[in-house]
């Protein structure tokens, strides 16, 4: 085991702790978008796929790199876009409520 591996292990452990702590009290309706957002984040494997394309030098290596890059890019791009589409559906209560409340206030006037 080399010092580098220990450093990496430290980073890994700390990131696990951050991950555990960050999901504090997410409401059930946000579970699906949150899953999707986390899914998009591991699309960062694209960086790794790009870096192996650099070291590749055999046809097999290039093939692996091509598939990896395509997979990873699909994960990242698709993940963020689909999460955004889902979240668009969860319109903020504030915005939707506002006209509603106004409606109640001026309710009498509206009938004139």
């Amino acid at each position, binding site marked *: 085991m080399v010092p580098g591996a220990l450093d990496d292990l430290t980073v890994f452990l700390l990131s696990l702790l951050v991950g555990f702590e960050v999901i504090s009290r997410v409401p059930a309706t946000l579970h699906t978008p949150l899953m999707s957002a986390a899914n998009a984040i591991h699309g960062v*494997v694209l*960086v790794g796929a790009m870096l192996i394309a650099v070291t*590749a030098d055999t046809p097999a290596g290039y093939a692996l790199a091509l*598939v990896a890059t395509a997979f990873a890019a*699909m994960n990242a791009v*698709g993940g963020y876009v*689909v999460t955004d589409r889902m979240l668009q559906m969860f319109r903020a209560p504030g915005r*939707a409520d506002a006209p509603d409340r106004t409606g109640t206030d001026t309710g009498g006037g509206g009938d004139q």
Partner: protein
Amino acid sequence: MSALDIAVRLVYLAAATCFVVGLHLMNSPATARRGNIFSAAGMWAAVVATLAIILASGTVTPVGWTVIALGTLIGTGAGLYTARSVAMTAMPQLVSLFNAVGGGAAALIGIHDYLRFGGPAGELTGAATTAVTLDVVIGTVAFSGSLVASAKLQGWVAGRPLLLPLRGAVNALVAAVIVVAAGFLLGGPGGTLALAVMVVAALVLGVLVVLAIGGADMPVVVSLLNACTGVAVAMAGFVIGNAMLIIAGALVGASGGILTKLMADAMNRPIRAILVGGYGTGDTAAGLPAGAGEGVRTIDADDAAIRLAYAGRVIIVPGYGLAAAQAQHELHELAELLEERGVRIDYAIHPVAGRMPGHMNVLLAEAKVPYAQMREMDEINPEFNRADVALVVGANDVTNPAARRPGTPISGMPILDVDRAETVIVVKRSLGHGYAGIDNELYTDPRTRMYLADAKTALSALGTAVKTLVG
């Protein structure tokens, strides 16, 4: 270390911070969208920084450039197209598909690294070989498992649990093959053959495990596989020595793990039981004996329309059946007709109604139901006793009073108190079971009227009947 290297590593750190902040913001509906954009910005910066470092290295062959450009282009195109074009109801299978390719990419990085540097004569240290092995196994399982989950959710593979004979023994055998092959890589002679065997066995294991799980458990499974991909990506980070991959992967691994537990808890199902499989019937088959129950009172469209139209207040309870019948638009039309007649309408949204968390919110939002009318369980429950009619559409378990008693599969799950309303009208095709596979006592309650029909047909018929009534 050149100044560029330092700059790139600082950008990587900033990107990792963006991922954390993004996830943090996802805790509340008000900030969730901003969080996603934050996270995407971090990803963007990381990719640009990587391009900079590749450019500066100057060692990339033209073929290498082509591979990077082509791969990114294909992936981006496929991701954009599917993410934009898919129907809102097909989101979970798409997320699962994206997860599959992510896991695949992580596994490919490990495979590539082993082929280049590993093996008996290779230069990989023990720690690095361990990371490669974990990366390949976990990534491959996530890949094939997620593909099957996606196919189940899409309906290309039967939703019901597919239980092979001797399932336990077969799974154990496949797992043993993986362990032996990994042993070869780690302590033994290693080599491409061992790697290939391990990959194939991992592919098979992912398929077998997920096939045995019922379609309705899929959201939890997808979330778990998502966490697996996170861990695989972290391992890929170990392999290529990239701290950002480690951070992002571990982050997703841990938060995805917690999320999986939260989701399972919300359905009152232990994760272990889900993974063992065999539970749930997937989508209930149509054509169960209709109206055969004793003490069940049925109702027809006209009668139901009258009760609805002359009610002061109606609370609508949507469930999985509404999604299965794709009847959200018909439901909204009916609700609007009733509102024109002065009926007060609310939708009672149970947190795990449907087959994925937030399913009903998304479905109703798609049909343009006003946000203010979608009421959460805790908020609406005390109001059922002031409602004239509770209209239950394709919901079953989330209204089953058996949950209030101990000893049933859904005991302890909070339910919507529809049985406190003056009249309950239930729209579904039969007296068949829901996800949990148990009888619903609500259906024999004297206040309940069953309208046995497909939700889409029934709601259109109700709409027509209300119009006739008025016109």
